[in-house]
């Protein structure tokens, strides 16, 4: 049992000195050696032929003009792309905005207010946002909660499942082009890679549910498996017309093929089927059978608590961003749109061109619109039964996607699009 010492001034001074001692110890024993090792043994990064040493960094503080030619090469580096812009930080920020938008938008649809108080009076401009700091409060709450692993659980799989979900979601966002040239992994078969990564999610869900050693998660995991069986084939077939019309499996190539018209105008049935199956893939409300909170407590998430639950939710919302972005890329023309935004220049050096800023703007707007539409569907629909989902998936959605394929082939052979031989 911890003893609570009496609050006196001497105890206060003692505790402050004690804290200071530990800070000094940690700095001198851990931080300083790491700093020295980095300074002495790690070679400084060379960007655009210029060695970035500490002197140059200090010079940039007083004279930012020195650093201006180095900005664009930094933006082009693989680490920046993976960690910040089209990569993880952008996706996580988008996911955060989506969570907040979902809470406010759902509350509006259900005649509630939603998050209201947190952060309302923190800044003068935050008054109209209303409760946007609730997300930070939730994050701190999740960080501070005890992670309970149920007895009899398969511990390695139980701990690995949230990490695997985040990894698969990160792999999805690596494949999606955000603006001309702004894609992390420009693979010529990136569409197939997307399908391969999407297959990881239900399998991980099944593993997590089996590892929990509990009844509700197990039922939820099996439902995830049946859901996979019902939506996977329509999902893959709905994109086939896009591949036929664009004649490439690369997502960048698919966006570039839509420079004149969006594919949703040519194959609207495919867009409809893809949207429905994306909802099923995301386990969102018409198809949230694996985590149906009114039937099987929280489905496969039941035994997850604290930060493991937080990571699973992060992966879910990154996946929602990725699938909205995929819908935008495949059917809504990706970054294509009027180039009206000016480029970004720093001290006369062009950092982002006009086409890049406009591309990022249009991509973000379209993706956010698709995600809002998903939230709209969530707010207005009840959950379907598993046999209804299976029968609808196999008889209606597959038939629709086959019709869609024939429409694409007919468009090609009638000479409406492309140059048939």
């Amino acid at each position, binding site marked *: 049992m911890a003893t609570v010492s009496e609050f006196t001034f001497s105890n206060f001074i003692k505790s402050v000195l004690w804290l200071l001692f530990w800070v000094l110890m940690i700095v001198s024993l851990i931080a300083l050696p790491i700093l020295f090792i980095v300074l002495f043994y790690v070679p400084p990064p060379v960007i655009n032929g210029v060695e970035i040493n500490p002197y140059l960094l200090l010079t940039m503080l007083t004279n930012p003009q020195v650093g201006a030619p180095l900005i664009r090469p930094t933006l082009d580096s693989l680490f920046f792309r993976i960690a910040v812009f089209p990569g993880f930080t952008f996706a996580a920020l988008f996911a955060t905005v989506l969570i907040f938008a979902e809470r406010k938008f759902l509350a509006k649809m259900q005649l509630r207010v939603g998050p209201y108080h947190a952060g309302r009076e923190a800044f003068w401009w935050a008054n109209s946002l209303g409760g946007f700091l609730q997300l930070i409060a939730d994050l701190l709450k999740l960080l501070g909660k005890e992670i309970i692993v*149920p007895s009899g659980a398969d511990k390695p799989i139980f701990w690995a499942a949230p990490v695997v979900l985040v990894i698969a979601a990160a792999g999805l966002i690596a494949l999606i082009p955000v603006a001309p040239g702004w894609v992390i992994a420009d693979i010529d078969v990136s569409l197939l890679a997307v399908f391969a990564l999407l297959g990881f999610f239900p399998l991980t869900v099944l593993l997590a549910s089996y590892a929990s050693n509990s*009844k509700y998660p197990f039922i939820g995991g099996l439902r995830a498996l049946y859901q996979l069986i019902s939506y996977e084939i329509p999902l893959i077939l709905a994109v086939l017309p896009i591949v036929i019309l664009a004649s490439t499996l690369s997502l960048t190539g698919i966006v570039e093929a839509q420079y004149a018209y969006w594919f949703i105008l040519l194959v609207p049935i495919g867009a409809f089927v893809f949207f429905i199956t994306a909802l099923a893939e995301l386990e969102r409300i018409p198809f949230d059978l694996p985590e149906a909170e009114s039937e099987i407590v929280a489905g496969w998430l039941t035994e997850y608590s604290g930060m493991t639950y937080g990571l699973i939710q992060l992966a879910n919302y990154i996946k929602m961003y990725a699938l909205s972005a995929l819908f935008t890329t495949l059917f809504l023309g990706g970054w294509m749109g009027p180039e009206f935004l000016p480029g970004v220049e720093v001290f006369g050096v062009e950092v982002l061109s006009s086409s890049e800023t406009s591309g990022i703007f249009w991509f973000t707007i379209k993706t956010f619109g698709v995600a809002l539409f998903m939230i709209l569907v969530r707010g207005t629909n009840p959950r379907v039964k598993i046999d209804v989902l299976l029968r609808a998936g196999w008889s209606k959605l597959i038939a629709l996607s086959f019709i869609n394929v024939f429409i694409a082939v007919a468009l090609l052979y009638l000479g409406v699009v492309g140059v048939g031989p």
Partner: protein
Amino acid sequence: MGASASFEPLLWMLLFGVVASVPALIVAKMIAPRRRFFNPVKFMPMECGQVPSGEGRTRFMMQYYSYVLMFVVFDVMTIFLYAWGASLFGLPRFVTLPIIVFLAILGAALGYAMYLSSRRDIW
């Protein structure tokens, strides 16, 4: 550029997923409260407040088996169609005919299986 070179950023991204998620778990482990004494009730599987009965990994009825069987067949078919669809521009028109025959055979099989799937006693 070889295939491995273009897949390399994807692998780095997957690694970054680990780098971004594992520290969150470690920090949560560090700052979250720990158990002072072992309370077995806390670590029971969740069963809405009841004492759990039986095993967690229960036996279950294998429902919808017909769909599972059909999935094994038709999931492979979709990837065959991708190989055809991606190269359709460069192919002469008569090559589409075998694909249509292939689709007809599989479609007829799918229709028959869907017709039979409503009869429980067959599956």
